[in-house]
């Protein structure tokens, strides 16, 4: 690929990104004129109609920023997993990290007093947003450690993939037990969490999410060369002087950081992680991760921002959970693009 051709979609996507961000800021249940939005964004003055500035500054802006972070993180995490396992169906949750985060959240939301220790946690502090995020981090981290320990004993990435799926399966079974013995209200809270949400991350939480996701993204970009080598097969990678096991550890850690932190704050957001890498390969027609990592960031962000706009369609008072929209709107879009392209760039994985 030469750079000239690549610039075309890049400029287009950058433009689209800005448009999507503005659209997301201006879409919502409350109609706020565009010039007022700009006024509030550029010069927030205390004399404003306080409900408008509250909506823009405290609801829409954090939500849009969260969408950007989650869109980047999940797409890049998915790309890394697809490359590591050379499997087009892999996503950031494939190693059970998302399920681990869910287990952590289930422990907090679903205890129903059945476990004395959990009850004590509830007594200490009602399950505030920090507690949920913290529990999700512990759950995701625990599964990641388990995966890493097991990965040290394995040579083959495919075995790794299967073990990841098995761990995810065990974790989900544990959650089901909890759900089974919980009150309907608790199950409903947990269910809402699994629907995913971009709206609950503000203030310091947004800062933490931003720092972790950016760290993960930088790490992913720096390991581009490693990922390129892995694409050609583990033996080839070894012949290039790559320590496969070390590369695997780095990639697993990066993806865990991305998927774990995003799931902790936003809940499990599906689809983006699996679809965006395909779109990135399609648009940029390359398998070089130096291009694909930023491309995934761009496309993932645009897609998630647009999905968020749709989830709060103007004129409706309700907001649909983001997970519903990503699948309902995103999947047909990907099907359409792939059908037009007719064949998947199979070489990208093997």
């Amino acid at each position: 690929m030469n750079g000239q051709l690549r610039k075309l979609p890049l400029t287009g996507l950058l433009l689209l990104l800005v448009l999507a961000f503005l659209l997301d800021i201006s879409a919502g249940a409350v109609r706020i004129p565009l010039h007022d939005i700009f006024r509030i964004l550029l010069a927030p003055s205390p004399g404003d109609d306080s409900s408008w500035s509250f909506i823009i500054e405290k609801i829409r802006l954090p939500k849009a920023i969260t969408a950007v972070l989650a869109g980047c993180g999940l797409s890049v995490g998915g790309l890394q997993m697809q490359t590591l396992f050379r499997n087009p169906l892999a996503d950031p949750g494939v190693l059970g990290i998302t399920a681990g985060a869910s287990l952590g959240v289930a422990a907090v939301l679903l205890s129903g007093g059945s476990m004395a220790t959990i009850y004590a946690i509830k007594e200490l502090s009602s399950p505030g947003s920090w507690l949920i995020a913290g529990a999700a981090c512990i759950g995701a981290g625990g599964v990641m450690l388990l995966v890493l320990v097991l990965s040290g004993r394995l040579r083959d990435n495919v075995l790794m993939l299967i073990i990841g799926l098995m761990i995810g399966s065990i974790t989900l079974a544990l959650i089901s037990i909890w759900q089974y013995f919980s009150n309907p209200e608790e199950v409903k809270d947990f269910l809402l969490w699994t629907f995913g949400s971009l709206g609950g991350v503000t203030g310091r939480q947004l800062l933490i999410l931003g720092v972790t996701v950016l760290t993960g993204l930088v790490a992913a970009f720096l390991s581009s060369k490693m990922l390129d080598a892995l694409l050609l097969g583990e033996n080839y990678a070894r012949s290039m002087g790559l320590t496969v096991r070390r590369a695997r550890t780095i990639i697993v850690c990066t993806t865990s950081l991305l998927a774990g932190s995003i799931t902790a704050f936003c809940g499990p957001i599906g689809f983006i992680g699996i679809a965006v890498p395909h779109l990135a390969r399609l648009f940029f027609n390359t398998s070089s991760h130096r291009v694909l990592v930023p491309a995934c960031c761009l496309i993932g962000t645009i897609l998630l921002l647009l999905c968020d706009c749709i989830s709060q369609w103007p004129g409706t008072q309700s907001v649909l959970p983001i997970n519903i929209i990503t699948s309902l709107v995103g999947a047909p879009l990907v099907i359409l693009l792939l059908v037009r392209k007719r064949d998947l760039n199979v070489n990208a994985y093997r």
Partner: protein
Amino acid sequence: MVRNNRGHGLLSFFASLLLLAGGCRQRAAEYAPGRKINPRISVRYAKGFTIDYYEGYRDVSIFDRKAGRTDTLHYLLVEKGVDPPVNRPGLPVIVTPVERMAVISSMHIAMAEFAGVADRITGLGSIQYVNSPIVRAGIRAGKVKQVGIDAGINNEAVIAMHPGVLIVMSNPGTGGGTYKTLTDAGIPVLPDADWLETTPLGRAEWVKLVAALVDRDETVETKFDSLARSYRRLADIGSHASPKPSVITDMPFKGTWYVPAGESFMAQFLRDAGADYHWSDTKGTGSLALGFEAVAPVALTADVWINLGNVDSKADVAAKDNRFSSLHAFQTGALYNYNRRVNDLGSNDYWESGSMHPDLILADLIRILHPGLLPGDSLYYYKQLK
């Protein structure tokens, strides 16, 4: 098919014998259909059920209100020692007065308590969250056992217990598929749809169904009438009070803010308490799932915030989401939660006895919204979050 009563199988066995003998005498004359008699009580507020009285039995109709009162479930409450009427074949039969009952929700405990028969509860959906001292004593003594809820119901435990009736929380329209094993085993399963009622008194009036089960119709009606009088008197004071402070309820979770719909009993509470409730004119008997942003303009300026959920202090509220501290009601400290009566098990009596004491809840709400309007200022179910 639902088996009517335990004698039925034997009866049909003999009936077939008689038939085989060539006679037509199986139409036993002594099973004359009961004569309709004057109603012993009337149902005034609840829309989901009626009771018709016949000699020797009651006919309870439970309506699927979504189907417009056309789809009706019938239960025959037949007095002990009286044979079920032959002209109503195939209907589930409950022998009254019920001596032992299994119930699912805390609302049912409250109804039994109100009717003075809490000691007849032998099975509970979950024995974790109970307030009634009688039932708690029963649990300690091992007399009250856990039977599970909905699909998780422990059929074997219920069958072994063999209660006179199992009262479940159910929508009458969804049918009894979940409970087929139990009805096949001869345990009548009675759906309680009090939660579909649109007024607090309508919900509480379902207690008359429990009263009919234990043959205390008149006593409970008298008690309920006095409750209704007390509620209406308070509602008269509350709904005429002015100015009406604006109110928001509940707390959003993950961007979704569930608020009571206009036809729900909570909205009725707010109207009766003299609140200015933004969604009072909306359709629906449940709750509206709104986005944070859709509620924000109302929430920012609301005078009072009630029913906040699982929080015990202002710090808890801010820990849920720091944006809540921007709300007017948060800044003025007008946060009132329904958790004054949470016991050592973490069980909230608001959900239990509160459902049978709408007058106390209404009095709390009026005292919160219109201080000084009622004599005294102590709250019963609610407390201010500090």
